[in-house]
């Protein structure tokens, strides 16, 4: 070590100066601030929207309490309620679960796990992606032509059956795509391990691919139900009722399914077009009722999302153990 003390000291301070000085990353700071700003802007809009809706809806729930949830559509804001809308939306959700879930999951598993990759399968996949982007009003036309007019003997025409089947078809591409993506994400080592000890394709799919893909599939299907719950355009084309809807309580279930119907998004649409005059008894307006209906719809979606999260966590815990 022939280096003298003075050279060490000077190099040390030089190194220190070099390490602590240097230019500040101004562009980087500006960029980070911009990111935060954009995030806050979107958050702000969401908050304002929610605040506005909840503030308007509160008096409805205070003055009408559960009557708002149990009453039927009516011309007076004192009496109108969303029970028929909730029923219609739940039936539509049930149709999506019963029709679109099994078909969509099966199609997604086939495309990813069974179909040999070829130009044809790529073409099919591309078109399913395109279908997911088709505007919902187009599906409304399809529902009108096929289920309301074509199969009116079965569906009863402008009925909740027609609506449920149409919306099930609307969300089918979403379910197929998310299923295929979840299946694609299954590590190939897991499949090979199964095949390696003599599993057939069905056994490998049942025991390894599907359980591993289940949380992703579940998330996709729940998003699909939420989407179906929020769609208004196809229902308007199919002919959901926006005004007064008389449902006799002595009707059988099949008659109800095949009869006139409404659903939450359509109720909201209808009330937005009502004359905004306060009711004589409660002083509530349709505008306020509308906000309350939005809160109910958001509540439905929220319950579904929470259910999806709980189920997914349970699946994921199983996957790890």
């Amino acid at each position, binding site marked *: 070590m022939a280096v003298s003390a003075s050279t060490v000291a000077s190099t040390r301070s030089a190194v220190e100066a070099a390490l602590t000085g240097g230019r500040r990353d101004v562009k980087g700071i500006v960029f980070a601030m911009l990111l935060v700003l954009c995030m806050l802007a979107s958050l702000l809009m969401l908050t304002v929207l929610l605040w506005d809706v909840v503030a308007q809806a509160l008096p409805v729930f205070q003055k009408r309490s559960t009557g708002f949830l149990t009453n039927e559509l009516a011309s007076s804001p004192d009496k109108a309620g969303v029970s028929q809308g909730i029923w219609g939306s739940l039936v539509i959700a049930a149709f999506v679960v019963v029709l679109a879930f099994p078909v969509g999951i099966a199609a997604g598993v086939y495309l990813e796990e069974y179909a040999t*990759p070829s130009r044809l399968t790529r073409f099919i996949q591309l078109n399913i992606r395109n279908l997911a982007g088709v505007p919902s009003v187009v599906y409304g036309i399809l529902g009108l032509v096929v289920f309301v007019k074509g199969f009116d003997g079965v569906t009863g025409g402008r009925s909740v059956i027609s609506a449920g089947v149409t919306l099930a078809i609307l969300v089918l591409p979403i379910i197929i795509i998310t299923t295929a993506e979840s299946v694609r994400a299954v590590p190939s*080592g897991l*499949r090979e*391990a199964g095949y*390696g*000890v*003599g599993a057939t394709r069905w056994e490998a799919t049942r025991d390894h691919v599907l359980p591993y893909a289940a949380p992703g599939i579940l998330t996709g299907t729940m998003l699909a139900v939420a989407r179906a719950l929020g769609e208004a355009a196809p229902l308007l084309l199919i002919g959901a009722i926006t005004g007064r809807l008389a449902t006799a309580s002595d009707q059988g279930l099949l008659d109800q399914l095949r009869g006139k119907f409404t659903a939450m998004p359509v109720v909201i649409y209808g009330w937005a077009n009502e004359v905004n005059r306060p009711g004589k008894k409660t002083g509530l307006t349709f505008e306020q009722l509308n906000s309350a209906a939005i809160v109910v719809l958001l509540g439905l979606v929220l319950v579904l999302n929470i259910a999806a999260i709980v189920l997914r966590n349970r699946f994921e815990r199983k996957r*790890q153990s």
Partner: protein
Amino acid sequence: MTDDNVFTTRELEVYYGAFRAVREVNLDIRRGEITAFIGPSGCGKSTVLRCFNRMNDLIPGAKVGGKVEYHGIDLYDEQVNAVEVRRRIGMVFQKANPFPKSIYDNVAYGPRLAGVKKRDELDQVVESALRGAALWDDVKDRLKESGLGLSGGQQQRLCIARATAVEPEVLLMDEPCSALDPIATARIEDLMQEMKDRYTIIIVTHNMQQAARVSDRTAFFSTEVNPESDRRTGVLVEYDLTKKMFSNPGDERTEAYVTGRFG
């Protein structure tokens, strides 16, 4: 062909789409021996290994030409059921890949598929497979715990136990120690020596010392550049007793490789 040959390949070649990954492989794999496949990356040794239990079937576009015979039966005959092939010819993979299930269920999976249902029978199979893989003492008190909670070396031994639980005749090992530390590697190598009298073993390895330590015979694969494209096709350069391959190889490319001058 003598009865001592488990596998015989003649003019074996594998295509991935239009690309020929390996060509003209002629090998006789002898019963009860450990055969090592060595060679540089991309020389097709794993590809050839995967022909022996038809694992290449799972890769879209893979095509096998030539002949692979297992006890004289063409493995790629239309009558042959790939699922049955894989029950007799087990495989251990490069990356330990236990199922995300309990240790017990990992080992019991194969036997269950094969139709073993009785609890005490399964218990017995699981215990003997885990003992055979030198894992029983480590895990006997936590069979219900996840296989993913084990260390890397233990996971690989669990995979060996899983593969042997269906009592295969052959064990194919595709670089089973490449992700393990030297101690875990030594345990697997010891295990291979113990398993030798029960199984015919073929091991692909990047590690020449490993091949020299564990194997009876060694096949050296190399690559040659195709004149029409710059993609490389694997070829079998030399196949002989391991002792000879490492002391007095017949091909100068083998000598260059095993002495570390190439690859």
